[in-house]
């Protein structure tokens, strides 16, 4: 018996609040979970700064990754197994890809990727294909196995059915994070009947389709997704924390470029600042390291860096107002000048944040075939796009809302010990 088919003597289970249990029987999966690269995901929060809004949202990418694996395992073992359209030889690569799909995420990855021009997907590839414990486990299955797993995650694998299990408009990734994020944030949205959806999934030549009888369960899933976006993912307070985090990183990089002498030298950031981050450097980063620096930088001489770090660590976030760039871009120029007059640097303290700055997407029907939409398998075997059959989905996947907010430090502006008149002018402009 080869390593790829080796089973554990006894099934291992992880207790999980979303799926009750995560079942592991395959030796490969158990070994992958034990690698240091996978264990690192325990120290990276799934929702980044959202815990500053929803205090329960401390869950990690580790638990999400196990959840995605478990959903794929149930689809394959409980629904697809034995069906002629499903090739059982794809089971292990599907499970491994589900487990490892987020492996390259770094600490607060959204902000880090923006500031340092990184791509977590690239690091996922590097971890799977590079000199790592994960690669060593996968190589034991076969010399080309790491490449196969990497291709599934990169969506360039030849079997699109396998890709769509992990990455499509109704995939294991989304089904796990919607439920998990709802559970940990404590909101009442995000719940849908996953068991029902899994039971009506059917493998087809190059995708996974949903039996027509499951349409209402899918409608519920789309509604959950829609509500979670606006209530949790796009929450303006979490975005405020994200804005501050981004500005801390910009400031630290700027100071490094200006040869500022840090009290706490940013050793772990050097390769990021110099744009030469190796895999080894990257794997040393996690949120505990980053928060250590933020904690220490509260004592820095540079008033902007220390202030931003204090704000982040103590949750003294920026205030916000709704902002319409089309009507108010001239006001923005005026505000920027007034901020300078007030001695508040607008580059760090006056920030427009747009919905497109966030990493989440909506359900799109997929016109021009750019993204594969959710397809229903009708009773006559015809395939129909979901929004053509469901009025609810059609209504919420039409013209989408977009949103812009203007963030600023309200406490600075209400401090009248200096520049009182300018600050009053700013407040009047913001209130207008």
């Amino acid at each position, binding site marked *: 018996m080869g390593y790829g088919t080796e089973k554990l003597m006894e099934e291992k289970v992880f207790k999980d609040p979303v799926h009750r249990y995560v079942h592991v029987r395959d030796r490969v999966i158990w070994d992958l979970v034990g690698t240091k690269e996978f264990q690192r995901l325990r120290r990276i929060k799934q929702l980044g700064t959202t815990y500053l809004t929803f205090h329960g949202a401390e869950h990690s990418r580790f638990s999400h990754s196990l959840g995605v694996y478990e959903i794929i395992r149930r689809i394959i073992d409980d629904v697809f197994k034995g069906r002629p359209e499903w090739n059982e030889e794809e089971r292990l690569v599907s499970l491994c890809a589900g487990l490892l799909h987020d492996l390259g995420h770094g600490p607060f990855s959204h902000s880090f*990727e*923006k500031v340092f021009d990184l*791509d977590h*997907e690239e690091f996922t590839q590097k971890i799977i294909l590079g000199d790592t414990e994960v690669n060593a486990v996968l190589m034991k299955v076969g010399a080309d196995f790491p490449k196969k797993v990497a291709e599934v995650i*990169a*969506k*360039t694998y*030849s079997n*699109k059915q396998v890709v769509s299990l992990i990455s499509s408009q109704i995939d294991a990734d989304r089904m796990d994070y919607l439920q998990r994020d709802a559970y940990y944030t404590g909101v009442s949205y995000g719940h849908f009947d996953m068991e029902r959806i899994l039971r009506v999934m059917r493998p087809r030549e190059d995708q996974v389709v949903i039996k027509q009888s499951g349409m209402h369960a899918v409608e519920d899933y789309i509604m959950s997704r829609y509500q979670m976006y606006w209530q949790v993912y796009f929450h303006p307070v979490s975005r405020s924390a994200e804005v501050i985090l981004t500005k801390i990183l910009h400031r630290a990089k700027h100071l490094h470029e200006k040869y500022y002498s840090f009290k706490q030298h940013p050793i772990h950031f050097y390769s990021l600042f110099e744009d030469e981050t190796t895999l080894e450097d990257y794997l040393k980063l996690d949120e505990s390291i980053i928060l250590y620096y933020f904690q220490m930088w509260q004592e820095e001489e540079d008033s902007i860096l220390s202030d931003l770090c204090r704000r982040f660590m103590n949750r003294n976030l920026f205030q916000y107002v709704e902002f*319409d*760039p*089309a009507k108010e*871009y001239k006001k*923005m*120029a005026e505000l920027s000048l007034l901020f300078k007059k007030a001695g508040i640097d607008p580059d760090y303290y006056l920030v*427009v944040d*747009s*919905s*497109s700055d966030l990493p989440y*997407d909506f359900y*799109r029907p997929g*016109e*021009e*075939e*750019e*993204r*594969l939409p959710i397809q229903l398998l009708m009773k006559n075997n015809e395939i129909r796009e979901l929004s053509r059959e469901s009025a609810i989905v059609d209504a919420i996947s039409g013209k*989408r809302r*977009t949103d*812009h907010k203007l963030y600023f430090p309200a406490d600075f502006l209400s401090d009248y010990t200096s520049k009182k008149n300018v600050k009053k002018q700013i407040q009047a402009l913001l209130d207008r």
Partner: protein
Amino acid sequence: MLKDHAKLMYAIEATGEITGRKKLQKIIYIAKKLSFPFQERFQFHFYGPYSEELTLRVEELSNLGFVEEIREKKGGYFQYRYSLTDSGKEFLSLNEVEMPCLPDCLLDMNEQNARFLELVSTVLYFENLSREEVAEKVFTLKSKQKYTLEEISDAYSYIESLKEKAKSLV
């Protein structure tokens, strides 16, 4: 403010008009691969490199009234045309965007059809692979498009000509 939006507006203005979401996606992706500083992140989707950020940003520009999106029925699906509105032009005039060599490359790409740009962007996506491996990827992942070896070769030549164009204008 909205610097990344302004870059997209600059690109749309430079071309005059872009027809098709797919074409817009591929043009920006190719420009990014030519080292023009677009910030949108692309991933490989079923039909090539695609950026959700780009889709959302263009949607925002359309909702703001800076970009006009005209929806037209074409065969069995809808096609979209994008151009800059007067208020978009005014906004852009107040926001400096410095990509002097971009318009020439964009105009050239805009004259190509979406099918060819899809191939070019796919070849660029796999640029770290050998030509043989790229051809294999194209035949496997885009089997429905039925690209030929000759077209793949044309894509390579076209990428070289774009690189020259981008370089000569620096």
